[in-house]
């Protein structure tokens, strides 16, 4: 009941916020442009810069290569968007000073944090689902066989959800840094580490790179390393929970 009230409040705040709306729109537009647009350019205009770049990212014919391209786009946008929205959701309470209204109530502080994480992950799951539908519909529109669309959508959704969950350490960073800027900084750090690490061939051991590699044909990454982003999500959530359970105002 108490946690339910906190969850409804967090969902309402999230649904009304400009941060969430902007992030949602940006993700959908970027995924559509880079995946559907990229695949269309690779097939229809291979001589153009975009067509050449997209073609270099498509590692296999058919759905497999198309899903790999989509995973790259969905992965980066899901990590960045979820990190920023999570940083705002948690950190704004400290930045704006509204945290005082969430303490000295029957719900424990860590239950309030749980409501925040639940609301953000719910939004991220919906966004990943929308990304998946968009990608699948785009693939069919580009002439890929309809029968492969459900599996492609499931893979893209899984990549999005895994990367959204792996952003949970940002909740701890926003709490420890007492504001959303600390969380946004942590998000950018995760994106940079993932991209640089993957660029140097270390993607298999970087939790925020594993989901994209798993969905990329020829990467040699099976489903087992997906345990890495799950572990990061659990550790991040537990660290944030511990920080909220011990929360003190004015002491930092």
């Amino acid at each position, binding site marked *: 009941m*108490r946690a339910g009230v906190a969850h409804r409040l967090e969902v309402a*705040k999230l649904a009304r916020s400009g941060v969430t709306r902007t992030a949602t729109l940006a993700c959908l537009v970027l995924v559509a442009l880079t995946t559907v647009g990229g695949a269309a350019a690779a097939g229809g205009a291979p001589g153009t810069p975009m067509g050449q770049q997209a073609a270099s990212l498509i590692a296999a014919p058919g759905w497999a290569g198309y899903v790999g391209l989509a995973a790259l786009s969905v992965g980066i946008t899901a990590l960045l968007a979820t990190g920023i929205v999570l940083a705002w959701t948690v950190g704004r309470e400290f930045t704006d*000073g509204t945290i005082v209204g969430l*303490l000295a*109530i029957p719900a*424990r502080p860590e239950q309030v944090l749980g409501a925040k994480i639940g609301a953000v992950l719910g939004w991220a799951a919906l966004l990943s689902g929308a990304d998946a539908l968009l990608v699948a519909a785009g693939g069919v529109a580009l002439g890929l066989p309809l029968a492969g669309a459900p599996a492609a959508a499931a893979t893209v959704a899984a990549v999005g959800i895994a990367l959204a969950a792996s952003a949970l350490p940002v909740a701890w960073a926003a709490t420890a840094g007492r504001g959303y800027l600390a969380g946004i900084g942590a998000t950018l750090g995760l994106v940079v580490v993932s991209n640089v690490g993957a660029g140097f061939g270390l993607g298999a051991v970087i939790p925020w790179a594993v989901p994209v590699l798993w969905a990329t044909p020829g990467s040699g990454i099976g489903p087992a390393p997906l345990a890495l982003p799950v572990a990061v999500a659990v550790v991040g959530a537990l660290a944030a929970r511990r920080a909220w359970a011990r929360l003190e105002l*004015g002491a930092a």
Partner: protein
Amino acid sequence: MTAALAIRGARRSLRGTPVLRDLTLSVAPGECRALIGMNGAGKTTALRAVLGMLRLEAGSVRVLGHEARSADRRFWAQVGHLVETPFCYPELTARENIRSAAALHGAPAREAAARGEHLAAVLGLEDRLEVPARRLSLGGRQKVGLIAALAHRPRLVLLDEPTNALDPFAVLALRGLLAELTADGVAVLVTSHHLDEVARCASRADVLHGGRVVGSLPMEGTDLERAFFEVVLAAERAAPGGPS
């Protein structure tokens, strides 16, 4: 009579500096007590400790008979507070903010809504309830925070500088509300550094200086400003190394 709020020997340092030093204070049901002091006296820290937002190094805080940081948190349903920042999210309407605060305190929705409407009418916010809080003035947001602190019918109310940004009409209305609350047996603790404001709403004022109560002033028949500075000066003289 059991105190609604009882602080005994509270001590807390922040970044190596003692902020609360053996703070002892109590508020009885039906009493409006003020905690007055200069900037940095420890008023906000004291409220944070009362509300369980800050752990004590020594001493105790009992809120409505419960330890402030006890595991069973149900008693917080009977406490209302406005400390530092009003409960006022800019993306929600004034009404949504008020109802959310009441729901977080476990208040029945219909009853809290009716009480919120009444308080809004008293404070002059009734025609702004459907407005997103980001469009409210500073005073409007303060009114939302005050209503959010009171709509769930608390038995103990803690208000930090409650008249911040309020217009004269709302200040008068708030004074009347506080009188109604105490008449109903609600305990109220108000912190302020505006002595004239305190004199009009509290029955007694405790002077906080250097993290502890150094004197208590009755409101009636007192030149509050003079009495306040006499108490503060006496505390300074009594302190080791203070002026002689």
